[in-house]
């Protein structure tokens, strides 16, 4: 599965994008299996917090930094670690 994460916002407003494929990334495959995008709360409108747009094989969600925890947090940092 193809996973894309875009981080936007923050005081600096600098965009970061990362992409990875679980077919060649066993760690990512495990994380994807533990993530439930349906249970993510809507992002709060908190000034200058980071906002994450996550796309797992066409399923999308937006998460605010304050709500980002558990396996989804691990997944986001893992994929952004691959950012160019």
């Amino acid at each position: 599965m193809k996973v894309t994460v875009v981080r936007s916002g923050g005081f600096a407003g600098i965009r970061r994008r990362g992409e990875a494929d679980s077919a060649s990334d066993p760690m990512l495959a495990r994380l994807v299996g533990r993530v439930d995008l349906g249970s993510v709360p809507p992002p709060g409108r908190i000034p200058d917090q980071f906002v994450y747009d996550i796309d797992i094989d066409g399923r999308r969600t937006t998460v605010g930094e304050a709500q980002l925890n558990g396996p989804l947090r691990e997944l986001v940092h893992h994929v952004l670690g691959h950012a160019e």
Partner: protein
Amino acid sequence: MRCHIVPPHMLERIARNADDPALRARARRTLALTSAHATERRLAAPAAAPAPSGAAVPNRMIADAGHKERLPGTTARAEGAAATGDTSCDQAYDWLGATFEFYETAYGRNSIDGAGLKMISTVHYGERYDNAFWNGEQMVYGDGDGTIFTDFTGPLDVTGHELTHGVTQYTANLDYSGQSGALNESLSDVFGSLIKQMHLGQTADQADWLIGQGLLAPGVNGVALRSMKEPGTAYDDPQLGKDPQPADMSGYVRTYEDNGGVHINSGIPNRAFYLAAVAIGGHAWEKAGRVWYETLTGGSLASAVDFVGFAAATVQTATRLYGADSAETTAVADAWKGVGVSQ
């Protein structure tokens, strides 16, 4: 801190003995802002006596997150306490003082809510955390990664920007999305810059109109994070990319990211403020800043206001303050034309 020409011993005498209560209050405030609690304790009235009227003094608290992401963290420095020796903690404390002083001196505003709200900042948030934010109750600062960003407590305008998000929350409460979100961002940049300008004693033509100058680590190709004077020119770097801010409506960016591009499209109202301030001249916080401040806090701005609505509101405020045919009102109206918000 700003240089105060009056030495502390004279301020103490004024704070105690001056006939004018406003003068006494002002001396007390200056002492509270510039020196440590020793002076404050000497001046402290007996416990039962009420504080002198009009004596707005800051109430600061700096907490240390110890590189975790929990708020607020442990108390590192309370109001009046001596410097800790931790650069981030002491810088955050001083910049809260400068920001408090700005709002008090320029607009008679007592802290974030206008009623003396305690100002709380957490430093050393997260590991190499590249950000600062306002979470609805307090300011939060990361140390930066050291490669791209330095410590976010460093530049005064970052503290001014974050605290102003609090002022906006307690006043017009602009929705942090789309154009009202970009205005929310722009107001934080405007007053962040004005706080720095007052601290440095600069007029509009002397100011750099940069946001986050000093925040980019050595080796990064850029002067700051944003330029109010020339949006889109603050940085151009292989690691960071290029400053994406438009300078006028022809470059307005439509995106769902960043709450609808609030940190991108803020370049447009930022430059409108710059144009108005430079056209009016002098200290920008005195006239252009007052027009923006009274528009923000006047109570008639809708929380979902767009650029056109905000522009009209500033022209209305300028008209009320300076008259319809004044140079100030003309400058404000021309500024919004200059960025393509109005014709």
